[in-house]
């Protein structure tokens, strides 16, 4: 689960990481009031959407003016007007889709004059099964970090050692004691929140040598949220498209593309393999995962069958955990409720596939049965072309 900068900063600060003073605002007036109460020399107004590189982004609406999703303001009035420009407008960054994301809140924080900034991330090395630090010096001339030029420090245990700190401090040219304190705080946040990734880009060195998180991005482990009720509340439903949300309610994974063929599969691997074969013709993939509930499966199929972009549907299931007879029942339930108005190709293999074929053959439903993934892809493209 992704969370916002202001939420991540609050977690980091709870574990002792320094952050600039700031508050969240939903209206220009709120933003201005925050600035009025501040004693800082200047303020930063930051659009809160789930994306990095907001500084270099742009807004679709002319009313938002020139400039990205992070703007500097001298006076409270300026803070108010920058907030007004951004709130309700659509921000496009190098990480969002070209459609961008609507900004519904801004974070107003005190400007922090740092003599040096650097890239800092804490991630999990999957193969070694350990936590790692990734560091990068940010050069004034080329502020963008090259992802292959990180300085990586593996952390051997859940407590950062002074040796590990020293290596990083030397590389960055920062004070070791201050850096140690900074890493320890981030590491505590990482472990206690069961994060998968924390990125602080940039971190800054203040005139007194203190290290401060100027930005923060944090990804939490969905599977661990049951242990962290307070963190699961940080979800921002506006960040998830309605279809993805409807899929997620049933435990499914939905991906959308620009084509016209909808795919219902079980397994992320199979979804990607179908995408590989259908290429630009893929409208969406829905991964039913191990779903074992007839009603939920029907809900998933309805999601695709009622998608206006979809001109043909492939249901490609190789059942292990997921039983094919439940898929067949789900197809019939969905068709009875919303109809199947586009060509349907079905490939069912694995657990209870014979029962499933029997159920479908006696349903009176119009569909093509296929034996392989390749055949299903070829047949649906022909069928969709003929129907269109």
């Amino acid at each position: 689960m992704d969370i916002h900068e202001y939420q991540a900063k609050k977690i980091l600060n709870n574990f002792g990481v320094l952050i600039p003073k700031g508050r969240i605002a939903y209206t220009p007036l709120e933003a201005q009031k925050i600035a009025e109460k501040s004693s800082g020399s200047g303020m930063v107004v930051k659009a809160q959407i789930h994306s990095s590189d907001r500084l270099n982004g742009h807004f679709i609406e002319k009313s938002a003016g020139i400039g990205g999703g992070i703007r500097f303001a001298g006076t409270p009035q300026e803070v108010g007007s920058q907030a007004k420009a951004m709130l309700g407008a659509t921000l496009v960054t190098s990480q969002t889709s070209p459609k961008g994301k609507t900004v519904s809140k801004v974070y107003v924080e005190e400007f922090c004059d740092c003599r040096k900034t650097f890239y800092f991330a804490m991630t999990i090395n999957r193969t070694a099964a350990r936590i790692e630090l990734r560091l990068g010096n940010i050069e004034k001339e080329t502020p963008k970090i090259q992802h292959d030029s990180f300085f990586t420090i593996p952390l051997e245990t859940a407590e950062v050692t002074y040796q590990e700190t020293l290596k990083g401090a030397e590389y960055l040219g920062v004070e070791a004691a201050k850096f140690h304190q900074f890493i320890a705080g981030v590491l505590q946040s990482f472990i206690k929140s069961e994060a998968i990734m924390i990125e602080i880009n940039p971190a800054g060195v203040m005139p007194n040598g203190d290290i401060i998180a100027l930005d923060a991005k944090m990804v939490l482990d969905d599977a661990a949220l049951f242990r962290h009720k307070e963190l699961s509340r940080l979800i921002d439903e506006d960040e998830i498209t309605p279809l993805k949300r409807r899929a997620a309610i049933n435990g499914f994974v939905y991906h959308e593309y620009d084509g016209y063929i909808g795919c219902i599969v079980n397994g992320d691997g199979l979804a990607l393999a179908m995408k590989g074969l259908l290429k630009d013709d893929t409208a969406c993939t829905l991964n039913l995962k191990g779903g074992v509930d007839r009603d939920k499966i029907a809900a998933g199929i309805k999601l695709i069958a009622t998608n206006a972009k979809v001109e043909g549907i492939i249901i490609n299931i190789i059942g292990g955990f997921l039983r094919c007879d439940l898929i067949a029942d789900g197809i019939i339930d969905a068709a009875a409720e919303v109809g199947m108005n586009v060509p349907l190709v079905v490939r069912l293999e694995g657990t209870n596939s014979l029962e499933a074929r029997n159920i479908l053959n006696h349903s009176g439903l119009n569909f093509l049965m296929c034996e392989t993934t390749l055949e299903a892809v070829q047949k649906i493209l022909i069928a969709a072309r003929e129907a269109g």
Partner: protein
Amino acid sequence: MAVLINKNTKIMVQGITGTQASFHIKRSIDYGTNIVCGVTPGKGGITHLGVPVFDSVKEAYNKTQADTTILFVPGTSVKAATMESLEAGIKLIVCISNNVPVHDMLFIRNALKKTDTVFIGPETPGIITPDEARLGIFPLNLFSRGKIGILSRSSTLTYEAVLAVNKAGFGQSSVIGLGDGMIIGMDFVKSLELLCQDDETQAIVMIGQQYGEFEEEGAKWYKSQKSRKPVICYIAGSDVDENGHTIEYPLKNKLQFMRDCGIIVADELPQIYEKLISLDLK
């Protein structure tokens, strides 16, 4: 010879009384798998699917000597179930459970370092030695004993690989689902090594994932070997993300790395079959 499990392997099932476990374990028993007992805390003393159920792994192990276990417990209980198995001296753990917290897997991987126990998964469809033992949720009637070993980090695509092997007329020596999880136990290095040492296996199909470097680690090991069996690799993935932006480490770079290590790459799913029939096997 069979890898990891054969018809004599004594197997216990943790979480045996659950609905899914009951459905799949019954099929495994019918397949001829030597399931000897189950563990469900609080249900010790009953008989389920014809085998005794115990309250703890230790008790089950002491009474039956089953040194292989399959986890059908909820993802949230995997850490505790695994620690219990390690303490009891279990040698092979196959973890079917999904939604295992990542930090729990970090903990488990660390605990495994101090033992020689093999942990497979999480989120694995299991492992199967055709005609001998089925340990997991694999569909039946899909497998036939033969000379191709299959290793996979994608449950569903494992079945696609099996179907491709069948179509090519070869059959499987052993099929090992390494697990779909972000952090897995047994990796490609260890599993490639097992299959390379297995006389019955003449070639290997390897299904990877785009993220994580398990495939690269396996490929590096493979490159370092003197005599090598052919390995065909398929990885489902993309060079761009959902929003059309180029991914930091695109799939094509990963596949090129595999090629450079001497591995045969199937660019699309149907090519697994094409590459298989082009092999010159005994």
